[in-house]
């Protein structure tokens, strides 16, 4: 995958996560979480989490309608990060304990 321009320039260090964590919706992001090895979740949680304040500062500067494709992709990584953080900080595993199913998300806000 060509990495140039996938994310805003100041987030070049996060390009390596785009292939795995850029997904269009929560259903896909949770499926990715379930199919991941736990160390992969810990790594993404730590590395992206360390940049979250910068991500917020960058994306807060613009109105949603002015977002570039790179901005939108960065936002989608942030949505994945939230899903991963729940696994790492709360459950210490990929799956919600004792759950055999997940929600079928019908409607959600995306940029």
């Amino acid at each position, binding site marked *: 995958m060509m990495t140039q321009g996938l994310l805003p320039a100041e987030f070049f260090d996060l390009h390596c996560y785009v292939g795995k964590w850029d997904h269009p919706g929560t259903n896909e992001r949770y499926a990715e979480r379930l199919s991941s090895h736990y160390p992969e979740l810990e790594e993404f949680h730590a590395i992206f989490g360390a940049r979250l304040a910068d991500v917020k500062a960058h994306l807060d500067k613009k109105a949603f309608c002015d977002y570039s494709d790179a901005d939108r992709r960065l936002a989608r990584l942030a949505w994945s990060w*939230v899903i991963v953080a729940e696994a790492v900080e*709360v459950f210490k595993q990929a799956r919600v304990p004792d759950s055999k*199913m997940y929600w079928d998300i019908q409607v959600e806000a995306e940029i």
Partner: protein
Amino acid sequence: MTNLMRQDGERWTDKLGLGRDPISLEDTISPEFYELELEAVFRRSWLYVGRVDRVAKPGDYFTKEFDALKQSVLVTRDREMGLRVYHNVCPHRGNKLMWDTHADQEVSGRCKMFVCKFHGIGFGTAGNVSKLTDPKAWLEGQGEQMRLKEVPFEIWNGFIFVNFDRRGPQQTLREFLGDHYWNEFDFPYEELSEHYSAKATAKANWKAMVDGFAEVYHATTTHALPFPSAAAMVGAGESFTGDYYNVRGQHREYLMGGYPDDFYHFDYERMTEAFGTGPRHPMDPKYRQIPKGANPIGMENWGNSSTMLFPNFYLQFYAPGWYVTYQMIPLAYNEMRFEIDMYMPPARNFSELLSHKAGVQMFLEAALQDVSLLEAQQAGLETRAFDTYPLTDEEVCVRQFHEQIYKAVDAYVAETRVTDLGEVNL
């Protein structure tokens, strides 16, 4: 989470005039009871369909399935007549009117007419025939005279309810809800237009999930991981309870105090300004002024309010000011579909949207913990190892709910003298 009543020494169970005996949960595991309940409860109650905002413009439509009742409705807006609710059935040969690929799945969209896939007959939003395939083929006048059949509906604060009573509705929605719920729930619902919706099915009776959300006694165990402070309270010998409970006719409610606005359990919660109870970025203070009906005691530091309308509709408000509805929909005596719809004020920037999406995620994962217990609950009940089950004082809403279910079915059996569905252990 103080319990005002227990500070006074009186049990909620006694204050609300409910008995103290252990309850039967046969209503949750009996296929025979389920069949009676469909008639006694679901046919005779006002049932939630969706919000008016989903059909804000003429031609907007959505369908809603009431699987167990074998009903499907089509909700739309006509330019002149306003909101319309029809049976989602073509009057020509009875094919389902609006569907896509899978006949049992709900659809939505906007169109100028509803066209039946079978013979191509089109109906306008006013219910009339607007396109008749090969008019010459029809016996004189019979084609043009067809109309979509209306379903009785009423609206409460933008929430649409329908009624499938075979006799026609025996109560208005206002009579069904009672004056407290009818009058005391004004709120700018339509301003909370950022909407999230999720569904899940489980092999459990629909009432098992109604019960699961009707009490917080489970929270310190089921949700110990996302809410460690609640678990710690119980570990330290304190109680984790609501602050107010009440029952009104067939319906019930409770109210809980909230955590301080800057309290978080985990780093990712603080970083996203979200919690297991949803988004917590500062919202317009007017949304914190929830309806009087949702906070009858005027509690200032309320955290969440739960209004549980018979039989299967919940309306909850969460601080700092967003709301959620639940429906627990019967599919079979041991199968249900759970639908959650969450509504918040539109995010004005990325940080607010992050708070919303993180709050939704955390909320759904906590709710998933509840749903995940249901099949084990159903399996355990079906062993019939026990005949009755004792309830804590905090579980008063569970007690009252089953009391109302049995009362409704008893009344139906007495009225109709139904005897051909086998013996039911009531």
